[in-house]
């Protein structure tokens, strides 16, 4: 019954829119400067608070100009992500309280998380979570957003009940898959709206106890602007957005390959996305997760790679693809390993 209502609601959506510390000092061997012994009496370089200075494997890029999936931000109540060509005006009195974590080594991104601000007066709270899964690196047997939503539905844990199986819909004049489930124990509902952009499954996950709020938030998503260039397989390959192709860096497309040789065994995967220019050179490297030494070694190697230029309609165009260096990390199921690649 509820499912039917939801479906109607979605159809409607489509239609409507297109210290300072004291210590008693006893006599002891005089302490020294340096190392762990400091007599600093002129405090002056107190470290920044709220900053992670010592990072493990982290995301980085070869330039600071090319947009990155994790590069979105909320400014003046508008979430903008240039990489995904996405612009979304937040509902009134909602805000991004905290930034998300760095991308995972399996290509999972938290693009933003929106929650009610202190000024919110509604009867029930909720959460808007926007994530992306890099389909080049997902360990799940899914090659697009529809398959990912289906996988989610088929592997829901016992705590949840399906409210609506994955169903095609339109949001902001773009094809999405809608999937809903709920928790009888928590009385929380999840509305998941998934679409493909640049070989990523982008998911908007709405959560609340209040289905009216969720329906209102779903309607509100129609105000989102999604760039025509940010299609499932990327853009036109021009200056803005390259075409994305899984496993493009295979032997038949490679003219020169120099393997990076890691000097330390860290046993972590190093997933990278590269953009190959129209001459077959790598113009941009995005490390989803790498230690600084790994970043340098991979960069030095990739600078030497040469590809056959990718042609589309007789024209050489830029292409974006993924490579996975390193070892260890997560388990890839057999189904994923044999999934169609292009």
């Amino acid at each position, binding site marked *: 019954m509820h499912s039917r209502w939801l479906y109607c609601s979605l159809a409607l959506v489509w239609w409507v829119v297109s210290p300072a510390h004291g210590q008693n000092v006893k006599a002891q061997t005089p302490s020294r400067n340096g190392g*762990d*012994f400091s007599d600093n009496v002129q405090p002056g370089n107190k470290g920044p608070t709220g900053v992670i200075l*010592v*990072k493990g494997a982290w995301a980085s890029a070869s330039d600071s100009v090319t947009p990155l999936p994790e590069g979105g931000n909320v400014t003046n109540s508008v979430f903008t992500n240039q990489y995904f060509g996405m612009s979304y005006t937040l509902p009134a009195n909602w805000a991004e309280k*905290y930034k*998300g*974590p760095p991308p995972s080594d399996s290509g999972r991104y938290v693009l933003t998380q929106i929650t009610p601000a202190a000024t919110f007066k509604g009867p029930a709270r909720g959460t808007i979570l926007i994530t992306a899964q890099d389909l080049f690196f997902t360990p*799940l047997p899914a090659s697009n957003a529809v398959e990912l939503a289906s996988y989610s539905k088929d592997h829901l844990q016992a*705590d949840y009940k399906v409210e609506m199986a994955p169903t095609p819909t339109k949001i902001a004049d773009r094809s999405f898959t809608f999937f809903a489930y709920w928790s009888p124990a928590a009385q929380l509902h999840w509305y998941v709206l998934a679409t493909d952009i640049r070989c990523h499954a982008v998911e908007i996950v709405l959560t609340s106890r209040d289905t009216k709020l969720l329906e209102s938030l779903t309607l509100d998503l129609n105000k989102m602007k999604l760039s025509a260039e940010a299609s499932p397989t990327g853009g036109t390959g021009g200056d803005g957005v390259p075409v994305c192709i899984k496993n493009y860096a295979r032997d038949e497309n490679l003219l020169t390959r120099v393997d990076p040789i890691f000097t330390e065994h860290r046993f972590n995967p190093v997933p990278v996305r590269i953009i190959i220019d129209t001459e077959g050179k790598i113009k941009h490297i995005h490390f989803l997760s790498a230690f600084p030494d790994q970043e340098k070694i991979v960069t030095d190697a990739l600078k030497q790679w040469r590809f056959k230029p990718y042609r589309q309609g007789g024209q050489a165009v830029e292409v974006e693809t993924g490579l996975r260096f390193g070892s260890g990390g997560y388990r890839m199921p057999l189904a994923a390993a044999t999934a169609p690649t292009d």
Partner: protein
Amino acid sequence: MKTAKRALGFTLAMLFLAGMALAQTDPGVQSGNRGTGAAFSSILSNSPSGILSFFTDGQKRFQDVESVSNSPSGNNGLGPRFNSNSCSSCHAQPAVGGTGAAMNPQFSFTSNGTAPKDTTPYFITATGPTLEARFPFFFNSNGTVNYNAPNGGVENLFTVSGRSDAGTCSLPQPSFNTAGNEGNIIFRIPTPVFGAGLIENLDDSTLLNNQLNNFNNNVGVGGAFNRNGNDGTITRFGWKAQNKSLHIFAGEAYNVEMGISNELFPQDRPLPGEDELQTGLPSNCLNLSGTGYPEDTSNPASTPNSAVLDDVSAFANFMRFLAPPPTGGVVLNGQQVSSSTISAGSSLFSSIGCSVCHNPTPGTTQVSNFTSSLSKAPVNAFSDIEVHHMGTGLADNVSQGNAGGDQFRTAPLWGLGQRIFLLHDGRTTNLITAIDDHEGNGSEANTVESNFDNLTPTQQQEILDFLRSL
């Protein structure tokens, strides 16, 4: 007018009472004896024959108080730097093998002869958490913090200076005041080791499959495993899952926390800063026990069998054979919480996504060559043994293995009902604060924390009650 005022007063009073009824309360540390600290049933039934004596011998050694030299019982080798003088002084709550106790033994060390020449560091208090300290960064030679020189090693709180059994050895304590003033110090509390043998006996394949099953979450959680730099396998003990096995965990702690060299860590350990100064430990602070190195060795001529073991092996066996902490009833404000409330809290905990990381049962152990209780046993640890980004609120800027400055192992929650100090640095005793502190810039837990906020106060209370039943 008077009637209107009375009505207003009544309304306000009712609102106040209703607010009280709705306010969530951490039931706090549960005081009942749940039987925590016992050995596995197969150990207690001495199966295989003789193994019980390995548990009881390890349990005794775990409680031995170490001296520098001249101990009548032969427990020598303490120092020259240390955080405490017995495993059980830190691993005490609610039983031997647990975490820090309500009364911090470290507070008495400067007055009871354990560290007579030292100053009690400012952060050690009588009723605060039992702590280990680390400086995330080295100091420059001019005494300022060098943010380009990560340190992260343990800065021992105490020295043997002035002890009658330590000869002429005299060492300075690290600059805790300066580090505190400069914001260059972080803390860790002891991790409890009940049920640790089960975690040790989970094979990597089980953990990886568990991770795969949890990739499909809609709460923004990623996660990765810390790994041994030599063989690449998953490491699992310590706040950042930096230790591979209980043997390594025990050997490192014996060396780092008590300054006792052993078969796994055969030298006395200088502070990272002492190496930086290219001085190391002075010669009159070496070999203080007079026995040579390592100070803890196996004892080939001893009887019975268990006495042949070195201390580290005995500690490892004790920890390995400790049963997981039993669950128990919960008392909130003097009233027994119903089992249906606990059950509801358990469902909620799972439903809002806490269990994506705090997995109730990450798997079943592999066949054990030690004892049957460790074989094919469910591990109800409430942890995925992965390290997760916890963001700026919890970050300590210390890297261990592959874990970076904001990554921490999902703390196993079994035994939480009887823990006093919470989170890696013991910053709070309140479960609600601990939950709130999971969110921050860069934390994987933000959405789950938000889901917690989306619950009704009654539901939130049910989760708190459930957690204190563990």
